[in-house]
């Protein structure tokens, strides 16, 4: 059975093709259109998925959209009318936004793909999140928690899933919290207040939180009240996201927390204002963690299960995930590589396959690499036109040369195989560097990533060695395989891993099993043999404001526009300059 899943129209649109119960291809539109967080109907992603699967649109048995647009329109309309008359601006905006294309998804799919009406299915938004979290996790029975800004009406759901290998699958969502009471919107409101872009800057709030003390936690707790049934409700007096498009926080909010930060104001942590922003970030982070821990601990008591699957955009908060693992009572926590809306394309297709059509369960490959692959010889062709010499190396020599480059302090663009689904570079489209020196971090921020200095970089380490360098709780390595948890760096290694140790002594590590990305794993081992520390700095291969690179040409363009020293794509290597033997032998390791 061939099923195409689609997510679109709000942020991070994507398409995924599932054939006979297993994914064949999945990619975000932004990787192909080269527009960051592209929310357009993902025509390029659909075309690529069909091409990768070797099928035509008419061969599809079903096309599944990841949410119910009419139910969403119902919520938008009801919310706008409830806010009338002061919400008339929001009403006009919402109608303009929705009526043109967003609610006519069935017709849009028919028009573009030419499939018949009866082949077009819809799942609910949080069902897609739940399926993306549970059906891709290495577990047969788990509690499920999904939480994000909002889907149709639900902003958070709890439930449980059960699958029998080769047999039936059940996903049951037991309860939900409804709009406008939303953990995602709470965090996004603080993101906007702190001057960052909503749906993009939440990472920055999490990074900034480590520099602050949660001295505003009591004020934040006043904005989100706990209810008798264990859930929560926002005090809407602090918010305006449900009544206006102009801003998401109210004057009451500003009275409680002080003047908001303008997006163009630099964050200087040596000033009182800068420290206040960090303290507010720390406070909302703490309160988010408290609520999530209460919810997950209650879910653990209710279900008695040992595994928990987390979905929705809030599941990208690695600090909260690590606390949930430590404090909720669950033994294992699974977060998919794309817990946000992009992953819903895959979730919707899997939900339709297992639940709607009742197809038997299939073991899911535990990796995130479902995107376009590299073309052999592409780097040689492009670099040759540009006048740079490319070397094509055997596997052993490539790994040895690359490890030597990294040990010599060079910064490396690394492209390997198929690209990742989701916002994180997990070893196939990465910038790699030695993790030892704070100067490397500063150079990456200044010359390559062009981003705020308070944002940390992540380490990657072979899973077997992760416990030697990081304080992982039981189940921590599993959570860290997709870089989904933030854990302390062992105190004795913090200075030797300065480039990847955040100000609070933590790191959002990737604990890499060899079967997931064998070449990167071998590179880590080779680097460890050279330097004694098999850890590398791993950050996404892109520049600020751009999507992660997809094809070799984009990797090469990025390599040429920033301070990356060496680019490796498949078995081909190109460097910006030739190093003398003395330089090549120079080791810049402070470990």
């Amino acid at each position: 059975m061939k099923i195409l899943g689609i997510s679109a129209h709000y942020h991070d649109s994507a398409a995924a093709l599932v054939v006979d119960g297993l994914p064949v291809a999945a990619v975000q539109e932004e990787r192909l259109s080269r527009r960051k967080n592209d929310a357009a109907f993902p025509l390029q992603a659909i075309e690529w998925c069909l091409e990768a699967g070797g099928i035509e649109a008419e061969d599809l048995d079903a096309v599944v959209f990841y949410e119910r647009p009419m139910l969403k329109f119902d919520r938008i309309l009801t919310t706008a009318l409830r806010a009338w008359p002061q919400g008339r601006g929001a009403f006009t905006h919402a109608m303009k936004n929705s009526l043109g294309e967003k609610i006519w998804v069935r017709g849009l799919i028919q028009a573009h793909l030419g499939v018949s009406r009866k082949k077009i299915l819809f799942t609910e938004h949080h069902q897609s999140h739940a399926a993306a979290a549970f059906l891709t996790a290495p577990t047969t029975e788990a509690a499920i928690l999904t939480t994000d800004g909002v889907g149709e009406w639900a902003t958070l759901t709890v439930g449980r899933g059960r699958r029998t290998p080769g047999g039936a699958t059940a996903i049951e969502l037991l309860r939900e919290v409804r709009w406008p009471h939303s953990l995602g919107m709470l965090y996004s409101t603080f993101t906007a207040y702190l001057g960052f872009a909503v749906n993009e800057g939440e990472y920055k709030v999490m990074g900034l939180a480590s520099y602050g003390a949660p001295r505003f936690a009591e004020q934040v707790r006043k904005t989100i009240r706990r209810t008798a049934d264990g859930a929560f409700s926002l005090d809407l007096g602090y918010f305006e996201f449900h009544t206006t498009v102009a801003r998401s926080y109210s004057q009451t909010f500003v009275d409680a927390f002080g003047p908001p930060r303008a997006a163009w104001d630099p964050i200087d942590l040596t000033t009182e204002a800068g420290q206040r922003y960090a303290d507010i970030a720390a406070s909302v982070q703490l309160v988010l963690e408290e609520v999530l821990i209460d919810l997950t601990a209650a879910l653990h008591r209710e279900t008695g299960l040992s595994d928990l699957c987390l979905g929705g955009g809030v599941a990208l908060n690695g600090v909260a995930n690590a606390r949930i693992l430590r404090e909720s009572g669950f033994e294992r926590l699974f977060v998919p590589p794309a817990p946000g809306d992009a992953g819903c394309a895959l979730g919707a297709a899997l939900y339709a396959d297992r639940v709607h059509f009742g197809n038997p369960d299939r073991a899911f490959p535990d990796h995130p690499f479902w995107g376009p692959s590299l073309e052999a010889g592409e780097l040689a062709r492009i670099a040759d036109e540009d006048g740079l010499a490319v070397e094509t190396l055997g596997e052993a020599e490539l790994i040895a040369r690359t490890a030597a480059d990294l040990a010599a302090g060079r910064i490396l663009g690394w492209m390997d195989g198929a690209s990742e689904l989701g916002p994180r570079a997990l070893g196939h489209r990465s910038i790699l560097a030695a993790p030892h020196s704070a100067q490397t971090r500063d150079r990456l921020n200044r010359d390559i990533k062009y981003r705020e200095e308070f944002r940390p970089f992540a380490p990657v380490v072979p899973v077997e060695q992760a416990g030697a360098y990081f304080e992982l709780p039981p189940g921590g390595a599993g959570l860290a395989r997709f870089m989904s948890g933030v854990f302390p760096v062992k105190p004795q290694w913090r200075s030797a891993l300065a480039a990847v140790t955040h100000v609070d002594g933590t790191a959002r590590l990737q604990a890499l099993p060899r079967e997931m990305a064998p070449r990167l794993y071998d590179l880590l081992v080779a680097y460890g043999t050279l330097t004694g520390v098999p850890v590398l700095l791993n950050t996404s291969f892109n520049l600020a404001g751009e999507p992660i690179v997809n094809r070799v040409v984009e990797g090469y363009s990025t390599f040429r526009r920033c301070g990356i020293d060496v680019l490796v794509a498949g078995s081909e290597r190109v460097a910006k300059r030739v190093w003398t033997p003395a330089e090549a032998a120079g080791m810049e390791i402070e470990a």
Partner: protein
Amino acid sequence: MKKRGRIQRQLIVFSSMAGSASDLARGLWKGGGSRRWIAPLAVFLCLTGAILVLAAGVEALAPFIYAIF
């Protein structure tokens, strides 16, 4: 994928609208007394959307949109 012209695509979207709008109205009606009053407004808005989609696809109709409003 089969490439269709803009007009053809918009006409396909237009032809699917009645079903989608009736799904919405039916859902609101089943939602009970407190939500039934939204159903006529939702249908009106969907019709407005239909006109907008049609006008965007068939440019010859655009001048007549002013006459409707």
